[in-house]
């Protein structure tokens, strides 16, 4: 757990462990995403599994008729920062609460270092968590809040002052939390998570309610924590919030895994789109398909080809003598990819 990875030296591979037949990894029916996952799921050896800090397998939560989380499986490797993404209501919070032993799964398991959270010896020294709907007594000062938690966790109460300084709340230490802004509460939540100097951090929408400066500060803090070799799982419904910070993303929608990939692989998808305007869109689409290039029609005379280059599309068109009015590489932004992935899964 204490292993330190140098900055930038974090493993770039995705931690696809061997999957059990009962809990197959779910991937969306988008060829390019399958490509990403296929290239990553190769030699998932024993070493990789030993590296996994968080292991979620077949995790399911049913509330009455609603399947909040549906056979979700993914892993988070040691020393990585993983963005846990999905639209509101996708099941992120429920998943994190199951991981932290607050909500009992209907089926499946969620483990931290091979053990369920409730089985950890000193959870506060091991895992720090910031959850939504985790509150503070409005009449208690920030410092006293931290001292109470430290006392319960068996940590020296001097830690309260240290973490207050770490999140920049020293000035407000003696003020009642009831008068805190949302941003200050988020900082206090992070301070609470850091009390036990944990190697694993689980943060649920930590950027919610932060102003741009706060988001910037949060990014810096997460980067700093990651550079110390800590493992961070951070959820968000806005990809852009975490895009600059995370190494990998786990995307879920409607309680199911859409994809787990490196951020680099996800970013690559954004650059691989080619938009073509041609009167023979349908013909070109089938010709491209014959070459293994997927293209979707967009309007009557346009095609959007994914995972390819303008050169490749141009060659195919020229070989068949198809007239192109326009051809250009499109840099769809990351948010579009995110939206596309999550809405397709939800549909």
């Amino acid at each position: 757990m204490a292993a330190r990875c140098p900055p930038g030296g974090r493993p770039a591979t995705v931690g696809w462990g061997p999957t059990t037949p009962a809990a197959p990894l779910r991937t969306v029916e988008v060829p390019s995403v399958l490509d990403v996952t296929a290239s990553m799921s190769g030699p998932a050896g024993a070493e990789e599994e030993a590296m996994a800090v968080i292991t979620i397998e077949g995790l399911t939560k049913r509330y009455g008729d609603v399947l909040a989380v549906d056979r979700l499986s993914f892993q988070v490797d040691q020393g990585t920062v993983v963005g846990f993404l999905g639209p509101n209501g996708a099941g992120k919070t429920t998943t994190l609460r199951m991981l932290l032993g607050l909500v009992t799964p209907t089926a499946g398991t969620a483990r931290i270092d091979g053990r369920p959270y409730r089985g950890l010896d000193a959870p506060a020294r091991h895992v720090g968590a910031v959850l939504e709907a985790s509150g503070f007594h409005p009449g208690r000062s920030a410092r006293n809040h931290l001292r109470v938690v430290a006392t319960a966790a068996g940590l020296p109460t001097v830690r309260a002052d240290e973490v207050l300084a770490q999140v920049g709340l020293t000035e407000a230490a003696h003020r009642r939390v009831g008068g805190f802004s949302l941003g200050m509460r988020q900082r206090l939540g992070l301070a609470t998570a850091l009390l036990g100097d944990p190697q694993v951090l689980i943060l649920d929408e930590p950027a919610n309610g932060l102003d741009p400066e706060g988001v910037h500060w949060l990014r810096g803090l997460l980067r700093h924590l990651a550079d110390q070799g800590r493992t961070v799982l951070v959820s968000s419904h806005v990809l852009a919030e975490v895009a600059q910070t995370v190494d990998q993303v786990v995307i879920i929608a409607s309680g199911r895994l859409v994809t787990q990939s490196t951020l680099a692989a996800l970013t690559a998808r954004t650059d691989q789109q080619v938009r073509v305007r041609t009167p023979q869109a349908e013909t070109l689409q089938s010709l491209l398909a014959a070459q293994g290039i997927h293209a979707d029609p967009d309007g009557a005379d346009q095609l959007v080809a994914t995972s390819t280059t303008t050169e490749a599309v141009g060659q195919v068109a020229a070989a068949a003598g198809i007239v192109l009015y326009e051809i250009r590489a499109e840099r769809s932004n990351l948010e579009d990819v995110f939206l596309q992935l999550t809405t397709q899964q939800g549909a």
Partner: protein
Amino acid sequence: MTRLIRAEFAKLRSTRLIYGMAAGMAAFALLTVFAGIAYAGREGNPALAADSLPMLVAAPVTLLSGAALLLGILGMTGEFRHQTVTQSFLVTPDRGRVVAAKLVAYPLAGIALAVTILAFTAAVATGWLAAEGITPSLLDARIGRVLLGAVLAAGLCGLVGVGVGALVRNQVAALVGVLVWVVLVEGLLVSLLNAPGLGKWLPSAAAAALTNPGGAGLSRLAGTLLLGGYALALALVGTRLVVRRDIT
């Protein structure tokens, strides 16, 4: 376990609730002493004498049991109301231990509150009597019995409060529920079931037997055992529910 109990005391000390309650109780105690002295020798009340002290000290005891009950309810349901329970259970995933720490801490806090207020009451009453030219004896065995009853009642009511809080979780529902139970339900049960003998076996009558035993009610020992039984049952069921329910 010790550190969890210490954490509960740290929680209590770091908000204004306990100080506010102490101030309120002290004001009420002052009022009872004033009323006790003002009405002595009138409307059939015995005149002030050297043995008036136990009567004056006993006056706020019932309300002190109520305060201990309130403290227990607020202590347990406050965790859910302010969602601090998430943090508590993150630090101590063995939830039963968190509830157990409260079951120890809140009765003790209730007892501390009761003893403090009774000492204050005794001091004020002694001073007041002295001003009236009466020197009461503090070594009256009846004062000891008032204190014993108050300590038992505050402790057990605090236990009941935590148990009710764990069972109901919603602060307003727990407070209203307990009020309705004491004011309405116990009386209704007795009259609806047409069982006048049932009354003394119900919780508030058991609590009353601790501070004012005998007569038609139970003895102090029986009251202690009965209220202790109710408290234990509530605590067990409440703890079980808290351990099993999802924290969302």
